[in-house]
């Protein structure tokens, strides 16, 4: 199909948001000055705000709404060395029909797999509306040459991936080579064609909140459609605080450029209670425009069953158990 791939030197954000940040990416020095000029983040205050929003009590109708919304936002994920077509097909079936006892359950947003499983996922999901997301760019470490990473992306897109989850070069970021990170995102974005691009920062490796804010802006300037916390493969993955910080970033970016960008916390969100806390963060930080699976996702696997059990509890009044949801 004909695509108008953005020129590798300018991202879509500039096209839509005006040239206000064009200077910021003109050189490594300019990019550093821009990113280091962003307001600082006070860690104690940030975490206190996230914790405070975590005390919201979401009951009855609000809970039912939140559970269905959360299910619809899941990128149901399997990223194991032991993945097989059978495993992926089972997961796809689960994504399309999460609760066999209750057809009113929403479908998940996507199934997220490695590139070599993208074709299998695409075939299994065809016509369902559930997207195929594929990690790429030498996920999860990202330690490969650029052309290898781009080939990885190309493969995934060719196999039918609707969404690409790339990892940034954390080594380059931590050593201050921001332009390298930026240009790599641009190149991947160009390779994505129509596929939406999620940029994974691996916040657990970036370590500081200031770094996470800088990475968020870097990713958004480079044309990310989503900014994503983590691979799920390191010790610290999505947390309420780092997700809150990224929600502030997309909120501010849209105010300044008019471009809306999605957020995807991934890894470590396992319970309905946790998921609802994240939705409260979305609601009270970025706002209701983000309460949609086009703009917010959960990278998760075991979360789905917990949401389904809570959903059953709301409809039957009885607590459910793991024998009443499917193992996939």
């Amino acid at each position, binding site marked *: 199909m004909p695509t108008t791939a953005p020129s590798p030197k300018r991202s879509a954000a500039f096209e839509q948001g005006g040239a206000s940040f064009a200077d910021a990416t003109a050189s490594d020095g300019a990019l550093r000055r821009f990113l280091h000029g962003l307001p*600082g*983040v*006070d860690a104690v205050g940030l975490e206190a*705000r996230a914790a405070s929003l975590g005390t919201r*009590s979401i009951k009855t109708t*609000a809970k039912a709404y*939140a559970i269905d919304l959360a299910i619809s936002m899941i990128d149901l994920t399997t990223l194991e060395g032991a993945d097989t077509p059978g495993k992926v097909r089972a997961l796809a079936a689960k994504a399309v029909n999460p609760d066999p006892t209750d057809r009113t359950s929403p479908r998940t947003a996507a199934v997220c797999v490695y590139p070599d499983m993208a074709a299998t996922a695409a075939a299994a999901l065809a016509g369902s509306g559930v997207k195929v997301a594929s990690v790429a760019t030498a996920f999860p470490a990202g330690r490969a040459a650029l052309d290898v990473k781009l080939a990885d992306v190309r493969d995934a897109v060719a196999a039918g991936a609707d969404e690409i989850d790339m990892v940034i070069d954390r080594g380059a970021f931590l050593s201050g080579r921001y332009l390298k990170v930026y240009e790599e995102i641009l190149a991947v974005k160009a390779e994505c064609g129509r596929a939406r691009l999620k940029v994974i920062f691996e916040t657990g490796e970036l370590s500081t909140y200031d770094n996470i804010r800088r990475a968020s802006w870097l990713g958004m300037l480079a044309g990310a459609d989503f900014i994503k916390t983590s691979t799920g493969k390191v010790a610290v993955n999505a947390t309420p605080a780092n997700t809150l910080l990224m929600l502030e970033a997309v909120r501010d970016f849209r105010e300044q450029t008019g471009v809306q960008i999605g957020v995807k916390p991934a890894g470590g969100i396992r319970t309905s209670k946790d998921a609802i806390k994240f*939705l*409260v963060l979305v609601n009270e930080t970025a706002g209701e425009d983000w309460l949609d699976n086009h703009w917010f996702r959960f990278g998760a696997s075991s979360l789905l069953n917990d949401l389904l059990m809570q959903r059953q509890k709301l409809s039957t009044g009885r607590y459910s158990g793991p024998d009443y949801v499917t193992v996939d």
Partner: protein
Amino acid sequence: MASAFDYAPAPESRSVVDIAPSYGLFIDGEFTEAADGKVFKTVSPSSEEVLSEVARAGAEDVDRAVKAARRAFEKWSALPGSERAKYLFRIARIIQERSRELAVLETLDNGKPIRETRDADLPLVAAHFFYYAGWADKLDHAGYGANPRPLGVAGQIIPWNFPLLMLAWKIAPALATGNTVVLKPAETTPLSALFFADICRQAGLPRGVVNILTGYGDAGSALVEHPDVNKVAFTGSTAVGKAIARQIAGTDKKATLELGGKGANIVFDDAPVDQAVEGIVTGIFFNQGQVCCAGSRLLVQESVQDELLHSLKRRLSTLRLGDPLDKNTDIGAINSEEQLSRITALVESGEAEGAERWSAPCELPSAGYWFAPTLFTNVTQAHTVARDEIFGPVLSVLSFRTPDEAVAKANNTQYGLSAGIWTEKGSRILAVAGKLRAGVVWANTFNKFDPTSPFGGYKESGFGREGGRHGLEAYLDV
């Protein structure tokens, strides 16, 4: 605010607290009617529902209570510190055990959100008793010389904004040091002090060590006046504080006064802006702004003023005002009709003097006393809203150009209780803090309290410190 994600009501259960239809005064370990039989009603400010009827203490009751405290003093002060400690530890633990009940009670009587009573007031109350319990047997190490002696009978008068917490700030250090007390809670919030009296009985505290007199200003005045009171501790308005200072002139009574404030919250252009916005909100809208140390004046550097105000208004629009017992409520009711009229009058004066008013878009309930979160821009040092303590959810925004101008404006008040500084530059924090004439300075945070940390004012915000090792001095003969 209509949103796709509309939080359903999540009310905390009222059934955890059992409020009796009437209460007496707590004197010498017994609940008793006022000598003249007078009573008054206490209402829930969020609904105007009458919660209970309590005895109204008069001068005769004050005398009875002081005599009971004096009788108890000899034995109480002679107890080994380690034994006094164990009583206070017991009280701390019972408060922890009953904290949900007390939180609901406080929310009902005061009007503040359950989120605050549950997550701030009650944990701090228990912590305060726990902290001072530990001092009771360590007074020799407190830096006041060997074997410091208590003063005797302490007359304590507390306000309605943090009823149980102010009680803790008063009673815990007094008992730890070996004093006995007569405490008068505010007339609009008498209930939690009476529940505390019950906790004293559960803890087996000897009779007369703690006496609670519910009543009005006349009872407070009689308590201050009583010749057998050795120590006066007051938290409340500066006007009453001055009256007390005059009353005790020429006596041997020792006093601590914790009075009003007009705290400056100073935001520099290199502040962590999202956290600064939260700090401003906490600073002035915590407890509906009915906080003596509230950051009621926002001093913002001109270069970031527009950006900051934009963020602040956006944030204020997400505040949830309503039923204080709802766990999602951020802004509760104003404590009384009287206080609401005072706030309203001051806000009207702000508008009349030409300041620009903005109020958060929120619906106010039809019953009870409510005021929407409000801020004034175009405020100068000359405006009433920049000078008078409003004691409500009203923020006055002023601007500055340089750090020394910020300090000059911050100090340009008769008060000196609190201040805030927002900047990522450490040396600026310390330089500015060094110049501020305020008893508590928060940097990149606001309205933080801890039993180990001394609190109190400069200038007309009062004198003496509560909390920490310093808080012992007010109750020791040193």
